[in-house]
């Protein structure tokens, strides 16, 4: 599969992951604003619970990827990266930037 096609299908996949993952974010958001106890619970879980960390990292990763690919889309809408070479470079840059952000997110969470 050409790299431009991989970038595109991943945009779709991360979109679906985000739609499902939003439930976790909403839950954490709800809990954190409900009360001091709820807030502590969220912070505590994020600092100690591996599963929670992993899920949040997963959702944040999907968000990072979807975000970068979305920005690339906006650039394409403005007429950039629409040639074969520039399109391919933009797709590779998309993957590289997303991976860097995902790794950074991992570092931040752990």
């Amino acid at each position, binding site marked *: 599969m050409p790299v*431009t096609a991989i970038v595109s299908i991943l945009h779709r996949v991360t979109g679906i992951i985000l739609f499902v993952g939003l439930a976790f974010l909403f839950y954490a958001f709800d809990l954190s604003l409900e009360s001091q106890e709820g807030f502590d619970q969220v912070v505590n879980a994020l600092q100690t619970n591996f599963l929670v960390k992993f899920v949040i990292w997963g959702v944040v990763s999907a968000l990072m990827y979807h975000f970068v690919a979305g920005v690339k889309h906006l650039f394409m809408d403005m007429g950039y990266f629409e040639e074969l070479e520039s399109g391919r470079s933009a797709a590779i840059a998309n993957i590289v930037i997303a991976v860097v952000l995902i790794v950074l997110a991992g570092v931040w969470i752990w």
Partner: protein
Amino acid sequence: MLVSIYRYNPEVDDAPYMQDYEVELPEGKDLMVLDVLNLLKAKDPSISYRRSCREGVCGSDGMNMSGKNGLACITPVSEAVKKGKLVLRPLPGLPVVRDLVVDMGQFYKQYEKIRPFLINDAPAPAIERLQSPEEREKLDGLYECILCACCSTACPSFWWNPDKFVGPSGLLQAYRFLADSRDTATQERLSDLDDPFSVFRCHGIMNCVNVCPKGLNPTKAIGNIRTMLLQRAT
């Protein structure tokens, strides 16, 4: 060299299958994929494929060569061979009539939809409708399409909604007439395209640009159509 060909004859086969052939290639010469098919057909006349001009002009021999769509007549074997093997399949996403021959009906329907002819109700001048060199230049990169269907059949949006999405080739041609200074039906043409499927199923994955044997850029043409729609609406 090993050549693996998609075989299907609806009269005798229940299901398609891949048939392997061993072919002797002449030393020191990089044949085109079509030459290899011709060599094989001399041995097994039942292999069916379309071909005509054998030089990338007529657009008959579009097929999928080791995973990538292209014209067999202008694709060197060295480019199409993957791991010592040449795998030939019909263009994806269209019904197979036999072996490498597909039914292009759906593809032509899309072409028909965009009304691929100049529309101009103004009375014709005595000799011809003139265009300035700048106006003519806008058609470069659009009029060269040979309707081989390599692009549209490489496009997932075409695979999923061939009846609603116009496809890269159809949209390139749609823009060719939108960009033509002699055509006066721009508004109707744009209105025809302004639904969620016809144009907007393009997600810019550029498979079309990646395979076009004439080096054309449907993605850019589609972007230009979108810009025209946007300019009209805002």
